């Protein structure tokens, strides 16, 4: 059964031992962040801070709803001990289905409403997440909803938002993001403010969907419905025509101002580093804050993996990339985004390799907005989910001279690539490399080295005999 809301999910992960409640008072000023970060680095449970300093009882923070594969599996209603391969397969299969959302007229997320001069973002316990952050971040594990005014397409994404004043937020959507492109293309030319809704604390699948790079025009809410197997209930915002998940904990309604900017950041970001220095960000004028009774802020204390971002994007980005590669005619078998590579490293498995296929893969990753800088392409004898096998293939099959193909670009690189210089980040200038760990297609079969492993070196009859006798060798159950 899909989870109806965040509270339903919290109950489920508490039952399986994947949630820990902290009832003693904890300071929103970095203490919540420090505890959360340490627990992330131990792959520990989700943390529910129930008693936040300076805030009334009932105002709480949940860190790390899906920061482990167990919790991702639970979010998808799978066995928590499912393998990464099984989780990928279930997500990929369910992603094919779309279910239209259901409009409702009243909603839990609007049980409390602040508008006009009542608006005060500091009535919610937005944490100062890391030392060195530019301010208190209310939007970390959120769903940010905007709309194309011409087509009516409603876009869901995940972007960071920092408190600026009691009724203003600043944000830093990357210049190549869908939010920035709609803002720049459809609102700025007319000097029109862009309505925006920052949604916090939904059931977990909707947040997963917000992390996936869907193509422009695709309604994420229908995919969220498909993945859950039932429609997402939406309610209209109080101050705009945007539709938001009815069961959310908190909705911040506002407008991105077209002619104003304000200081934003830095923030400890998903690649595991602080994002440079304070810079200029978009400015959101808050028009309303609505929330449930006893609202729960969902938080991800980003940093070195694992955390919600590295785990969720490992799943959602990989499935999106696999679909994209297939559309381009690449003979892809599997794509794996290792969480340790924070979406800067991708492993692509192919039916048959060679330099042409490697080039095709690189072309796909660098055609438009480029988020990935390193791609390893492996033959189908390598299990992409097993990094031991991937490293073995990379180390032995990738020719250091002709097996590394580079593509340089400007204006569409990922400004959050830590190895880029300040100038490269400003110009969105970058380089992506494909490491071709496949055998060249032109090699004669007899010149291709034969892998020396149990699977590849022994006759089938002998392998069957060995496996059949496995227990009698005193080696326990065969795995």
């Amino acid at each position, binding site marked *: 059964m899909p989870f109806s809301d965040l509270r339903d999910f919290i109950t489920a992960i508490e039952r399986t031992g994947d949630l820990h409640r902290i009832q003693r008072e904890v300071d929103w000023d970095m203490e919540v962040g420090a505890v959360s970060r340490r627990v992330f680095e131990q792959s520990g449970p989700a943390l529910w801070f129930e008693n936040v300093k300076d805030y009334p009882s009932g105002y709480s923070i949940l860190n790390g709803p899906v920061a482990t594969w167990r919790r991702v599996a639970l979010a998808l209603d799978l066995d928590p001990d499912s393998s990464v391969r099984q989780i990928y397969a279930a997500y990929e299969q369910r992603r094919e289905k779309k279910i239209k959302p259901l409009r409702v007229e009243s909603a839990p997320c609007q049980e409390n409403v602040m508008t006009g001069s009542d608006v005060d973002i500091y009535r919610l316990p937005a944490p100062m997440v890391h030392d060195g952050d530019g301010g208190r971040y209310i939007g970390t594990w959120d769903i940010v909803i905007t709309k194309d005014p011409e087509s009516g397409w409603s876009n869901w994404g995940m972007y960071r938002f920092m408190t600026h004043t009691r009724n203003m937020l600043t944000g830093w959507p990357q210049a190549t993001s869908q939010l920035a492109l709609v803002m*720049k293309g459809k609102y*700025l030319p007319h*000097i029109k403010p862009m309505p925006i809704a920052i949604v916090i604390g939904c059931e977990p699948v909707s947040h997963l969907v917000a992390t996936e790079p869907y193509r422009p025009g695709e309604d994420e809410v229908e995919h969220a419905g498909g993945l859950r197997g039932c429609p997402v209930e939406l309610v209209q915002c109080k101050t705009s025509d945007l539709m938001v998940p009815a069961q959310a904990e908190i909705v911040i309604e506002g407008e991105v101002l077209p*002619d104003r*900017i*304000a200081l934003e950041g830095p923030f400890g970001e998903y690649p595991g580093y602080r994002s440079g220095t304070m810079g200029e960000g978009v400015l959101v004028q808050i028009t309303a804050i609505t929330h449930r009774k006893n609202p729960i802020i969902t938080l991800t204390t980003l940093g070195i993996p694992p955390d919600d971002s590295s785990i969720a994007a490992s799943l959602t980005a990989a499935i999106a990339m696999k679909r994209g590669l297939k559309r381009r005619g690449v003979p892809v078998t599997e794509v794996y985004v290792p969480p340790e590579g924070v979406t800067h490293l991708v492993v692509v498995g192919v039916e048959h390799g060679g330099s042409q296929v490697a080039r095709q893969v690189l072309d796909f990753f660098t055609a438009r907005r480029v988020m990935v800088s390193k791609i390893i392409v492996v033959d189908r004898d390598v299990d992409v989910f097993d990094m031991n096998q991937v490293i073995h293939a990379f180390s032995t099959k990738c020719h250091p001279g002709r097996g590394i193909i580079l593509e340089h670009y*400007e*204006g569409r690189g990922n400004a959050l690539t830590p190895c880029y210089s300040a100038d490269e980040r*400003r*110009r969105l200038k970058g380089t992506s490399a494909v490491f071709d760990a496949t055998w060249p297609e032109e090699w004669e079969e007899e010149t291709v080295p034969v892998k020396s492993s149990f699977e590849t070196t022994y006759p089938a009859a002998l392998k069957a005999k060995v496996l059949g006798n496995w227990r009698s060798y005193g080696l326990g159950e065969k795995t």
Partner: protein
Amino acid sequence: MATIFWVTCPQCQGEFYCHKEELRHKKIQLLCPYCSHRFLDEESPKIVE
């Protein structure tokens, strides 16, 4: 908080914003962050403010 205007680089057509109080109608050359071309705001093919 600062007010801004948007300019288009006459050389590479890249769009970027500038601080209005400091740079609009001030006869100060703007530096395109994409191609490093320098130009006055009046030379921009498109200004949004």
